[in-house]
């Protein structure tokens, strides 16, 4: 039985309505919150071990503590609801089914850091989630959970919803900030970090939707309750978006520390049609691929997945069966990164394009024998050498595909075709 913290209200009818949310115990953390010292709230969140759930996995409490205290500038919160990482579809669930949990989390974070203006940057394609979120915000304002003097606490907070315009790179924290400022979503060099110089040049906290939605539980039950779940360095639970060749794709919440494949099988019913497992991508398309053997033996937590050479990322798990083609997968994801690259820096702009061309001709059966070593030589040139990590997000997985499934690539070259192209249930589209 998996522990539900974020998804606890998902199956409660109309939990997105304020009246229902309140009946379910919503917003009661605010009473405790406003009686606390903001610095103590930060401590509480630090001790809970809550890590960013957007992909970077950085300690939320520690990020908040980087914001300078008395700097004379307003501070901002940017809620990252861009949910751009391919394979990720969990934040939309929160926005549609439990938006008040996010709002409650926004109030908690803002109070702790001293923020009075928050922007929720939602990807423009999320039409329904945006409508649901805005409706919830309107309800919250009407009941005094947002606006001036929230519930008589003396604390003011305004929340605005901003629509993105179709760019993955605007999910990168500084790309998001640039976009909010009305400019092209091109990431900024870091340092300085947003906590010091962010939106409009002011200290800014950027947090993922899910991260903030965990805060009410932590406030209500104490940091110990949260830290009691998970492993030593991966505390609490996470929403995992499981897709690919499984019987029941969906969003499943789980505490860290379970066996990866056991969790996938238990939640989704295992590989569709009882076909063989080929590979698992554990953390979104930006994470290196795991072989079936690795997936069966690794524990689902930050350290273990990292030790296996990959990352938890946004918790987007994509399952590949024996009928899927890894070369095709590389072609599909590289086309995504090439399309989404902002174009600022040469390694990313040119590298993603180059890898896409190489993957395309490989999948068509026109790959040259030297292509594999070429790919392996290009990838390190794209890692650690760019403004943001989109370049790494292309190169790290690409390298893992070639390294771990080299035989598949070589078959494409030798047979001058894709050996899997006639297989049933080929997952690739277009």
């Amino acid at each position, binding site marked *: 039985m998996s522990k539900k913290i974020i998804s606890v209200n998902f199956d409660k009818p109309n939990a997105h309505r304020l009246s229902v949310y309140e009946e379910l115990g919503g917003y009661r953390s605010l009473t405790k919150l406003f009686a606390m010292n903001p610095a103590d709230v930060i401590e509480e969140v630090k001790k809970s071990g809550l890590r960013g759930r957007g992909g970077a996995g950085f300690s939320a409490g520690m990020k908040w503590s980087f914001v300078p205290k008395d700097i004379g500038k307003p501070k901002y919160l940017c809620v990252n609801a861009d949910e751009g990482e391919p394979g990720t579809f969990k934040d939309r669930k929160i926005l549609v089914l439990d938006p008040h949990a996010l709002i409650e989390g926004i109030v908690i974070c803002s109070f702790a850091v001293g923020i009075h203006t928050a922007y929720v940057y939602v990807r423009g394609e999320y039409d329904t989630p945006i409508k649901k979120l805005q409706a919830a915000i309107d309800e919250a304002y009407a009941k005094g959970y947002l606006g001036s003097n929230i519930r008589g606490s003396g604390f003011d907070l305004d929340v605005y919803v901003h629509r993105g315009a179709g*760019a993955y*790179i605007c999910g990168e924290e500084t790309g998001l900030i640039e976009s909010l400022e009305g400019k*092209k979503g*091109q990431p*900024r*060099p870091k*340092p300085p970090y947003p906590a010091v110089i962010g939106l409009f040049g002011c200290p800014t906290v950027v947090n993922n939707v899910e991260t903030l939605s965990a805060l009410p539980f932590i406030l209500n039950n104490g940091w110990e309750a949260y830290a009691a779940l998970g492993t030593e360095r991966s505390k609490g639970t996470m929403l995992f978006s499981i897709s690919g060749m499984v019987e029941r794709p969906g969003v499943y919440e789980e505490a860290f520390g379970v066996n990866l494949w056991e969790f996938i099988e238990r939640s989704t019913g295992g590989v569709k049609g009882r076909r063989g497992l080929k590979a698992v991508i554990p953390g979104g398309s930006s994470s290196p691929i795991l072989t079936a053997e690795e997936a069966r033996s690794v524990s689902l937590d930050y350290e273990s997945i990292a030790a296996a050479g990959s990352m938890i990322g946004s918790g987007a798990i994509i399952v590949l069966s024996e009928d899927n083609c890894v070369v095709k997968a590389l072609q599909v994801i590289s086309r995504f990164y*090439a*399309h*989404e*690259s*902002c*174009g*600022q*820096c*040469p*390694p990313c*702009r*040119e*590298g*993603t*394009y*180059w890898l896409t*061309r190489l993957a395309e001709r490989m999948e068509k059966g026109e790959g040259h024998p030297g292509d594999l070593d*070429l790919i392996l030589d290009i990838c*390190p*040139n794209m890692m*650690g*050498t*760019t*403004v943001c990590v989109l370049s790494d997000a292309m190169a790290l997985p690409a390298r893992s595909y070639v390294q771990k499934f080299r035989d598949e690539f070589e078959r494409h070259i030798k047979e001058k075709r894709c050996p899997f192209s006639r297989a049933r249930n080929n997952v690739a589209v277009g």
Partner: protein
Amino acid sequence: MSVTIKVDGKTIETEAGRQLIDVLNENGWDTPHFCYHPGLGPDGNCRMCQVEIVTPRSPMLAISCNTKVTDGMEVVTNSEKVKRVRAAVEEFLLLNHPLDCPICDKAGECTLQNYYMRHDLKSGRQEFIRFKKSKAQDIGPTLILDQERCVLCDRCVRFLRNWAGEEQLYIAGRGHDAYLTTFPGKEVTSPYSLNTVDLCPVGALTSKDFRFSTPTWFLKRTPSVCTTCSRGCSMEIDVDMRDNQVKRLRPRHNPHVNGYWMCDEGRLNYKFVNTDRVRKCVVEHDGERFEALLENAAAELARTIGAGTGRGAASMGGEPPAKPHLVVLASATCTLEELYACKALAGLRPGTTLYVARHVADGVEDRLLRKSDRHPNVKGAELLGLRVVDFTAGPDAEGRLPVVETIPQGAVLLAVGFDYGSGEPLEKFFEKFSRIAIIAARESNLTRMAHVLVPGLTFAEKEGLIVNFEGHIQKLSPALEGLWDKTPPWEVVVRLVAAFTRETAFDTIAGLRKHLATREAAFSGVDLDAVGPTGIRLEAKTV
């Protein structure tokens, strides 16, 4: 506050908070970079300036343009990793760069070429068709854009937006579809647009004026100063060594005057050096104009102003006339040496008045570099205590020209240096004189009025000092020899001076300068022979 850093094992002392790339490049390292420019600041997108910073864990790559030095910082620039990154960035940039070198203006001074030679030198591995974008696109009165060559460094965009204050270029599109362009239906019209050609590290932005003009390796570059307005931007004159013609002007960095830039007007004001020139001495005698040798023209010049040649030699014929009143009119575009020679002449010859004329119409003044006063040396004239007269305004309400009422009957005129425009007020003034002697480099209505005409030298051919509106002395250096005569105007005037004095101090330009510095209070204590590439600011009290 001073800090100590270590680079490749070598210790360097510098000030805290400076950008690492500046510290490196000032101390002998040559850190490659595209998007960074000291006049624009860092942008961080080209990734070429990355070096390794030693950390407790392992060396970390960081862009040196956006890394401020801290005490104890340890930097490595010669590791395999750094070499690999530089070659990698170069390769990525060349991936879709068109092989235009044989027809590209930038060849020979191209950053991409230079870095390839220094940091890459590998064969191309790109086998796919390169992107097709717009080429040879007319984007304004001064610029041609080639989108394929652009490396998207954003320098031109930042320059126009942040420094020139007019955002007229931008990078549209995303990823490898990104391209540099103007805004829809608009052009680049900034009066500083041509700085983007200097800034562009490749041949994406080229100057219409210079396009296909000269391969850059044939250009000899000479440091000099712009003479189009009273700002006096430091610049360089680029001369094609094959045909000895000035092909372009470009700004030089001078933190005291113009920073890194100059305006388009000044930059394009060189064509007259190659054309419209006074090529021969001319003497008018009995209504007819004759070509003459310099010695004879000089003798006639001396006779005109009522001086012998100093050695009692015969003039062109007839007896020396009675000494008429002489008006010496020097243009405010003259150098200090030319003005001082005129001052010496006026001081030594009785019955002489000297005016310095402002005659070029006022131009646009802005808050950046351009000054409305289109004379480079008005301040120099003022500091020498000379009377500056304004001819640009034209006759006054009563129809009188400036100072014209002071001209006695039968006065003669010696006009020096009117190369930058004549204009009606000046021509009407000249008409008041019975005999006109002119030393000028450029053909104009005035030179056609001369009874004695001696060719002068343009700014590109002479050595001389000018003082800008802020009292900053800068030096013109000759970029080419005088095309038709090599004698500088100050020397021509000085030969006339010799008729009135035994003073030999003026035999050399150094002698003239020394004479000036010892006798003129404004320049006392200034070594005019030691004016370096960025000039000397005169003390405020004397300005």
